[in-house]
């Protein structure tokens, strides 16, 4: 049983919370990094391979474009519809292949990234769809290559809604990271379950909630700040206006 009057309890609490926070931040930040690296191009390809998009005919074939578009769309939908707890377990063979083990914080990054990538890719897709087609045309009239259109026009112009999408993505990675205790991934969620729930320690529970809430709030504030800064320049697009008003939820 817990004894809050015991100084060892408080020492233990601090240790456990620090370790949990560290693991959560580690898992979330690496997963986020992977998510951006994979999700951003994925989102761009999703928009580009649509009819009339700039990657409409990869390798000179519209069929290839359509196939890529459908395939990615299917994968993204699949990734988004499978419940995380199932995905995590189903991915064990893949995780083993990538990380070498399926237990621990590092291993937990794989399912976290896998669930966040399709989510973020959709956000990128939506943000880029908002960019006025006239801008692409202007760049084409200047003789821009596809890569120049993506890197100099589409991504910079969609930055504000993309940052907000990223903030929503992080929130959901944090959310899912609470479940990785299942594969011994640790983190704050694990602390809440093992100490708060299984050992009946409301102190642990409340502390975890406060820390997670603090992290999410801080991230959201940073994201909103940058999104506003880019949006102010641009005259906010309708998406970023909507996203700025809606509290970010997972």
């Amino acid at each position, binding site marked *: 049983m817990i004894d809050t009057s015991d100084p060892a309890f408080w020492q233990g609490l601090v240790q456990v919370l620090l370790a949990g926070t560290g693991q959560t931040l580690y898992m979330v930040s690496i997963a986020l990094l992977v998510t951006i690296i994979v999700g951003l191009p994925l989102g761009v390809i999703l928009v580009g391979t649509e009819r009339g998009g700039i990657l409409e005919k990869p390798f000179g074939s519209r069929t290839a474009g359509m196939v890529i578009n459908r395939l990615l769309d299917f994968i993204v939908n699949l990734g988004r519809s499978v419940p995380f707890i199932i995905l995590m377990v189903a991915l064990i063979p893949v995780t083993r292949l990538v990380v070498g083990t399926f237990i621990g914080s590092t291993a937990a990054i794989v399912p976290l990234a896998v669930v966040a990538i399709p989510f973020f890719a959709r956000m990128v897709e939506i943000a880029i769809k908002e960019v*006025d087609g*006239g*801008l692409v*045309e*202007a*760049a*084409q*009239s*200047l*003789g*821009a*290559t596809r890569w*120049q259109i993506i890197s*100099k*026009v589409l991504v*910079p*112009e969609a*930055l504000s809604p993309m940052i907000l999408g990223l903030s929503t993505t992080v929130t959901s990675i944090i959310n899912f990271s609470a479940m990785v205790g299942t594969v011994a991934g640790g983190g704050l969620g694990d602390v809440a379950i093992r100490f708060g729930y299984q050992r009946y320690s409301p102190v642990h529970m409340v502390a975890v909630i406060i820390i997670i809430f603090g992290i999410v709030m801080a991230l959201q504030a940073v994201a909103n700040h940058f999104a506003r800064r*880019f949006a102010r*320049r*641009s*005259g906010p697009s309708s998406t970023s206006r909507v996203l700025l008003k809606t509290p970010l939820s997972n």
Partner: protein
Amino acid sequence: MISLRSISKSFGLTTALSDVSLEVATGEIFGVVGQSGAGKSTLIRTANLLERPDSGTVIVDGVELTALNERDLRASRQRIGMVFQHFNLLSSRTVQSNVELALEIAGQPRGTRRLRAGEILELVGLGDKAKAYPSQLSGGQKQRVGIARSLASNPTVLLSDEATSALDPETTRSILDLVANLNKELGLTVLLITHEMDVVKAICSSAALLEKGRVVESGTLVDLISTPGSRLAHDLFPLGPVPDRPGSTIIDITFSGGSADRPVIAQLVRDHQLEVSILGAVIETIGGNQAGRTRLELPGSAADREAAIADLRESGLLVEIVGGAA
């Protein structure tokens, strides 16, 4: 400078352009007019192959664009500037940086870009706005940035897609003056499309009328004015509907060049004793020349009227009988 030869383009079942041919000579400002849906936008976008025609040939500055691969086409596009109705500026970049975009795409080094962008912004009268963002500019200023961007890599040709249609009349005027100046100073060939006859009147030396994807009329304004029945000429000098006046003949007289300052009415009164009344008149300066159209009502006997008309025609005026008894 720009040759569009037998251009056809359809979108699904709708035909946007059918067998359109246009020749734009070096250094001229050529205006294509037509109502919305006539195919103007499609036409101008074929000139740099933003829209690839289903058939036909596009030649700009001696290069057959329709025969180029993508890489060479991109290089050629850098020599063809284009400005848009809605400016199409990048909101995430400053004015300076928007202009530099053209040079970045062309692969110019940073130093050259900065220098050239400053120079060209000065040329369009926006030297002091280099650090502003597009959202801080007025419509006219935005279009100046658009023009600066299109000219940054020294094109020989400028395509203007309804560049003044989103602007108020005064701003339109100043943008047209700018285009006319650039045409003179840089020897730039301009192909523009518009639905406003005023734009043609203000700066074009040649024009074509596009209707349902076909060129109905085309030529220099001076020639068009002296072509009987020219619809472009009628639109340049709108005199409104012809009133119904039984017992008299209504004629439109077109003046251009030397005939513009001839005392025609005095001549009719003096030589034919006809009590002419003026129903309408328009005078414009077109291509630096006075040109105009006057609608007159000729009373009197049929023989007198005929004699008067014959006389006017003989003196080299373009006379069209538009109403009343002949």
